[in-house]
């Protein structure tokens, strides 16, 4: 079987977990001798050659193709009506929208004659890139007929998947790694929600990374449950990491590592820290990462008068991430809504016991961890205190957690995915 896959990023050029998951999935597919054509907005040249890569920036759109015009009409509608422009103030935003609405009459012509240079990032032209990427998807689907099924990862690639399906008539699978409800709670960005909804509805089948995510697809996007299959993520490397990095402070360390945003629930970690410190002053808490709630967390830590026991590291990269896991005695992931959440598995690899929220997909596969509701700061404090003081349970978690990790293999995920493909193709035949 040959799969035409649309992604947005690929290692080593990644900014989140999406690229890593795609990489793992393709590795798994290779184990089962499944061929993958993998399209990304921008190829850098240093990607590991695990798939038949297509660089979207190198694809020329054939303007003679009449069907593109119809596609493009829908896409410009999407582009002009969405303005997904993160990190802009009101003034800059107005300038941007004025430009997009009044000065863009030329785009219709130019887009059909040139290649489009994608940044492949998540910048201010994101929506523009998403719609151009869809056109590229259509072009590829028209040009090559050597694939059996289309597979699109997350909303950025859904329009490309839909376009490819329309051009080729081949079945489409959309893979939900996260939804707008995870990222933004109830205050969803409507254009993004619209794309997600359109993608899930246009798809022949939906793959969700957890039961939690499947439930969201069903409840919030109106997808029938039988159309959604849960395929949990796996880990690329389940080996235990022995670090020689030593901590320099005498106290035990409890760590939060991730983006400091609404989705990750940092405020619950802060409140739980206060409760623990009141009972046991010989603990340090670390919040590693950055995000829009960082300053609010700093303020709260000061207000709770625990500034010498609660530390902020800023954004960590490279070895520092490993060092942070290595010196942690407990790792906490209090996410409010986490479709999967790979970080706790990294902690397990460092023999660090973990506490995860029940509102995370990883809780469905990792059994040797303490699971709490993200909002239950008393339970979180109890769990932290317990793991720090009762060595038996911490030891058990690290030993059994390591065994569990070994079972989470991408080849198993790929095998299940192939079954999903086969079922769809069988239904069509």
């Amino acid at each position, binding site marked *: 079987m040959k799969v035409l896959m649309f992604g947005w990023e690929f290692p080593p050029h990644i900014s989140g977990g999406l690229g890593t998951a795609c990489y793992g999935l393709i590795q798994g597919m290779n184990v089962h001798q499944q061929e993958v054509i993998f399209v990304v907005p921008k190829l850098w040249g240093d990607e590991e050659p695990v798939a038949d890569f297509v660089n979207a920036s190198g694809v020329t759109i054939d303007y003679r193709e009449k069907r593109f015009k119809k596609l493009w009409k829908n896409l410009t509608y999407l582009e002009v009506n969405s303005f997904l422009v993160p990190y802009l103030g009101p003034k800059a935003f107005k300038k941007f929208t004025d430009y997009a609405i009044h000065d863009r009459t030329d785009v219709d012509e130019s887009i059909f004659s040139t290649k489009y240079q994608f940044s492949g990032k998540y910048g201010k032209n994101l929506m523009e890139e998403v719609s151009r990427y869809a056109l590229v998807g259509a072009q590829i689907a028209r040009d090559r007929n050597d694939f059996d099924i289309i597979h699109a990862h997350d909303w950025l690639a859904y329009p490309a998947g839909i376009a490819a399906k329309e051009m080729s008539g081949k079945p489409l699978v959309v893979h939900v790694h996260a939804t707008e409800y995870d990222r933004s709670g109830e205050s969803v960005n409507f254009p993004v929600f619209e794309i997600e909804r359109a993608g899930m509805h246009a798809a022949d089948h939906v793959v969700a990374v957890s039961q939690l995510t499947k439930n969201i697809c069903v409840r919030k996007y109106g997808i029938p449950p039988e159309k959604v299959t849960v395929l949990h993520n796996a880990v690329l490397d389940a080996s235990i990491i022995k670090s020689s990095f030593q*901590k*320099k*402070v*005498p106290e035990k360390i409890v760590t939060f590592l991730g983006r400091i945003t609404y989705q990750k629930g940092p405020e619950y970690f802060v409140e739980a820290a206060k409760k623990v410190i009141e009972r046991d002053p010989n603990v*340090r808490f*670390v919040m*590693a990462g950055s995000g829009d709630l*960082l*300053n609010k967390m*700093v*303020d709260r*830590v*000061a*207000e709770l*008068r625990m*500034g*010498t*026991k609660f*530390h*902020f*590291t*800023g954004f960590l990269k490279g070895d*520092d991430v490993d*060092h942070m896991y290595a010196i942690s005695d407990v790792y906490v992931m209090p996410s409010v809504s986490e479709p999967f959440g790979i970080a706790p598995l990294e902690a397990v690899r460092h023999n660090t016991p973990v506490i995860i929220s029940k509102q995370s997909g990883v809780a469905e596969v990792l059994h040797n961890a303490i699971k709490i509701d993200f909002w239950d700061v008393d339970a979180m404090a109890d769990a932290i205190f317990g793991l720090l003081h009762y060595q038996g349970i911490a030891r058990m978690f690290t030993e059994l957690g390591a065994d569990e990790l070994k079972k989470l293999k991408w080849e198993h995920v790929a095998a299940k995915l192939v079954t999903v493909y086969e079922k769809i193709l069988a239904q069509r035949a």
Partner: protein
Amino acid sequence: MRTVCFYFQVHQPYRLKPYRFFDIGEDHYYWNDYLNRNVIQKVAQKCYLPMNSLLLELIQRYDGRFKVAFSISGTFLDQMEAYAPDVLESFQRLVATGHVELLNETYSHSLAALKSKDEFFALVHKHQDQIKALFNGYSPKVFRNTELIYSDDIGAMVAELGYQGMLTEGAKHILGWKSPNYVYSNAKNPNLKVLLKNFRLSDDIAFRFGDNSWGDYPLTTDKFVNWLNALPKEEPVVNLFMDYETFGEHQWAETGIFDFMRHLPEAIFSQSNFTFSTPSEVVAALSPVSHIHVPTPISWADEERDLTAWLGNDMQDEAFDRLYELEKKIRKIKDPELLRDWGYLQTSDHFYYICTKFFSDGSVHEYFSPYDTPYDAFINYMNVLSDFILRVEAASTK
């Protein structure tokens, strides 16, 4: 007697280097030597050296009829010795003329007066020793507290230390209808005379001099002397208190600030009956007209003239309280490096950087801060303080 009293504050903090969480427990050196040296050497070229030489020239030209006072913080004296010995020499030359008065303050430009009498006294004594050692046995008679912070209680402590006078801000909310151009006395101990900054005339020079959107721009010596002459005849003293970096650093040379100062004495001598005096001369010559009541501390900072530039938000209070919790343990420690860091960590600037009053005086704060945001400042300070606490605990259990 009608007289003008100039006092200049000379201070630079020991700024912290970027100190990461991973450094806690391992790296015990906190100071950003590169930045601190650069600041001292840059400001030396723009301000300290040219202004010192101008003052020396004026003192010699008027044969001592022109005079000024300095308060030089201990952290600045330390940094001059380390990074700019030529600047230190030029200050020593000025003091040697006999027409430049030095004031005492806390050694590390600390806020200790608000927290601990013991620590406050210790830091004042340390500054006294330092001034004595560096300026040929000099012994100041008048005191200025960090950022002109003053209250009835602080004044009483300063009187207890034996000073005859103390400087502070002529804050509107404590003066009411009264004028800053008289000598007052401390409400608890009448032996301590209090000199109040005339903030309008001081800030005309320090803040507004180069501001071409100011209605009175440009400020000339003639204009300034006219303002002095327009003051009620019975008011005896005009206290012009300002940061020394006003000259050449806050107001660049291009604004003409050096020329203004070069010609000001001549204009005052020829067009008015004002003289120049140092704070101790004012204190000796004038009797207080009344007590001044300052139940809650005032300072010379921001529009509020209160403590909110350094204390008041949760981050500042947290940093401040955690630091002074260590005082008891510090008393038993002899390690000179720990004691040095204890002093430098008290410097008010660290708390100033954590100020979040963005909307009124935030721009001034930003100008002086090496950090992007007050949050960065807090995180960095707390990381350092966490390591310092570990060292203090280790040293006190030895």
